[in-house]
């Protein structure tokens, strides 16, 4: 039986308890506030990050270097890993995949680098789906094959409080069409082939949350694995998770905060849901 370990990046937004439990290795992206550089989750907590955004500071991100990945992979090999599965932010959104692929060539064990074509909890769910069977001893080829199928089935819906952050960081994609507007409008978005795409708009947060749920109800079927993520919208996230638990047959609902990596791009007040049939 091969010993498999899973690596992801800080854009996956996996809750700390699951990281510990499943032995997932998270490589941080760098968050810049002007000239100041911090490592997401290492020396920058979400709390501090959002406090600084609220104070008007602006952040941007940079991908981990190949050396950071190489270090992570080598450490896992020293811990006995024989195969590594590395699941990352979409190559259309970040250069993280690029660094991981370069590092993969530099280590002696096989590293399977998986492009999730997504972000945040979608990456996280994929990494979790890799880590669980890996601990159970499934062969790596079967795991990677299943990950591809999950990536194809996954849906993401999210609302942002403002499009300003996506626009400022150049990640707005096709949602450019929703920029502007004199009304108090909350855009509802998705990721299409790894690019942000518009779905609809709602007037006010309450309607936006209701529409997120209604849209999910239109497309979700069967037993679901769900992640609800948010940036400083704890109550709305808890309410949405509760509605999802009572409306759908769910295997699991993971709720948690969007970390600084994704938070940089979507800003505070974002609420989203990722789901796929089990």
């Amino acid at each position, binding site marked *: 039986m091969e010993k498999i370990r899973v690596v992801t990046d800080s854009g996956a937004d996996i809750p700390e308890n699951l990281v510990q439990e499943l032995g997932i290795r998270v490589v941080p992206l760098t968050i810049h506030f002007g000239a100041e550089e911090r490592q997401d989750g290492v020396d920058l907590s979400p709390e501090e990050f959002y406090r600084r955004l609220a104070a008007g500071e602006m952040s941007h991100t940079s991908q981990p270097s190949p050396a950071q990945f190489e270090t992570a992979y080598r450490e896992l090999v020293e811990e006995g890993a024989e195969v590594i599965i590395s699941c990352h932010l979409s190559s259309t959104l970040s250069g993280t995949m690029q660094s991981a692929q370069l590092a993969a060539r530099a280590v002696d064990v096989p590293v399977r680098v998986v492009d999730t074509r997504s972000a945040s909890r979608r990456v996280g769910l994929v990494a979790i789906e890799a880590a669980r069977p890996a601990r159970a001893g499934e062969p790596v080829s079967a795991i990677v094959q299943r990950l591809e199928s999950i990536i194809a089935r996954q849906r993401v819906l999210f609302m942002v409080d403002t499009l300003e952050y996506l626009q400022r960081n150049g990640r707005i994609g096709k949602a450019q*069409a929703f920029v502007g507007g004199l009304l108090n409008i909350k855009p509802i978005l998705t990721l299409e082939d790894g690019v942000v795409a518009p779905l609809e708009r709602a007037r006010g947060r309450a309607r936006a949350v209701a529409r997120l749920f209604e849209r999910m109800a239109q497309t979700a079927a069967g037993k679901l694995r769900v992640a609800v993520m948010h940036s400083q919208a704890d109550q709305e996230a808890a309410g949405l998770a509760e509605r999802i638990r009572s409306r759908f047959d769910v295997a699991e609902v993971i709720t948690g905060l969007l970390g600084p990596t994704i938070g940089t791009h979507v800003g505070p007040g974002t609420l989203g849901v990722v789901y796929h049939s089990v």
Partner: protein
Amino acid sequence: MAHRRLSGALFREVMAAGAAALERHKEEINALNVFPVPDGDTGTNMALTVSAAFRETGSDPQFSLADVAQRASRGALFGARGNSGVILSQFLRGFAHGIGRQESVDGRGLAAALAQATATAYRAVIKPVEGTMLTVGKGASDAANRAALGGADLVEVLEAAVEGAREALAKTPKLLPILARAGVVDAGGQGLVRFLEGALAAVRGEYRQAPPSPLPGKAILASEAPGSKPADQFGAIAHEAVTFRYCTEFLVRGRHLPIESIKAELKDLGDSLLVVGDPELVKVHVHTNNPGRALEIGTRYGELLNVSVSNMQEQNRHAAQRALGAEPNPAANGQLKRIGVVAVVQGEGWQQLLASLGVDQLVSGGQTMNPSAAELVTAIEAVPAKEVVVLPNNRNVVFAARQAAELAGPGRRVHVVATRTAADAVAAMMAYNPEGDPEDVVPGMEESAKRVRIAEITRAVRESQAWELPVQAGDFIAIVDGEVRAVGSTAEQAALAILREMAGEDATLISVYYGDKVTPDAAKALAHQVRENWAHCEVEVYGGGQPVYAYVLSVE
């Protein structure tokens, strides 16, 4: 002297007489409004529609009845304003169809064509309602056919038609309870009676009055065009046999385009001149013998797009099919998108709101000035998308929008989302996604518009017992779904009263859009009261700038 046969020249006179009769009686028809609100415009719409039909008839004395009927039909289809104008245009279209290729007809031929007119109008309306103009048209054509069967001549057939129309009109309140409650007959039906009376005068040889005056307002036909000279010169022009053979149409794209100057330069080239648009994009339509000169004038002002020159003698055969060569032009707005939007709206605030939500083309108009089908076609064709959604934002613009959808050039699919107010349009735009799949986006826009509840607050100009609530002149009334549902002595009182009915526990957002006669302070004071009474809702206030309605309220 009474005429025995309806010829092309006589039919042109019939249209002139019908238009003049509607023009003379338009205020009487406008006043037949089921709401005690000064916004009835059925008479104006019908007069403008028939004027447009008349102007299109051309002045060639050699034209057969078939030629003139086709031209009138085409003019009416494009010039149609308001639901009544659209239905009237469908009567004229059916009439032309019934005439077919005949040079002229007698009483029996007239009766047959009237029957066809009625059938076509019924078919054009998705859900025909009795007690409307359709009933009156049917009364006219049924009576005409009974008379023709008895061997009546042209004048007698038309006399029977007028009598049948009047009888049917008198019955409209029995068929439509809302008319009975308001104590009026159907306005469109009254208009049709007036039109037929005018037609009868012409056929009797009694019509000597001035033909319709040129269009008021923003529209567009150069009043100096030979086609619209007063009636006493009408004969003279006919004898000059001025024919303009080429229907020439094009768009001019540029900056700061002077519509009036372009119009002035083109007016001597021919007739039926139409110059519409905005400073960036102007549509030109002219009948001329010198299309090259018209194009040359256009190029001096900007870049030409969608040029179309057609020979109208050929065109008469397919008058209803207008080929504009209107492939959506990606250059018109830089980029071709998947779905674009046209909205009809009145009030600067609304225009800004809708433009900010992504509406491509705004057509000015609404309750008190319905746009013609032609204006909507121009707007549709200026949208850089192959799929275009039209938001009529008024019940009385819905038919014209559907007609425009059919008349718009090939290469476009037009969807009418039947919004009743601009507040519906705001809701519809929430589901708009310019790059989405039209099969999802259009139904989504429809559903989104249905999810909001809308009330319009306005002032009654007369007392009315038509509703459950008695209305005195000067009262402010709240209209919801075509019913008076609340009354107050101030606009704000009426607004609060209707909100008590509409905004329940499930409401999350109340929007207040105030009109052009309301001060921002008054609107803010109202919003303050709404916030106090509906603490669980978000409350938003915007200046819509709409006329007539002090407030438009939406609850979602």
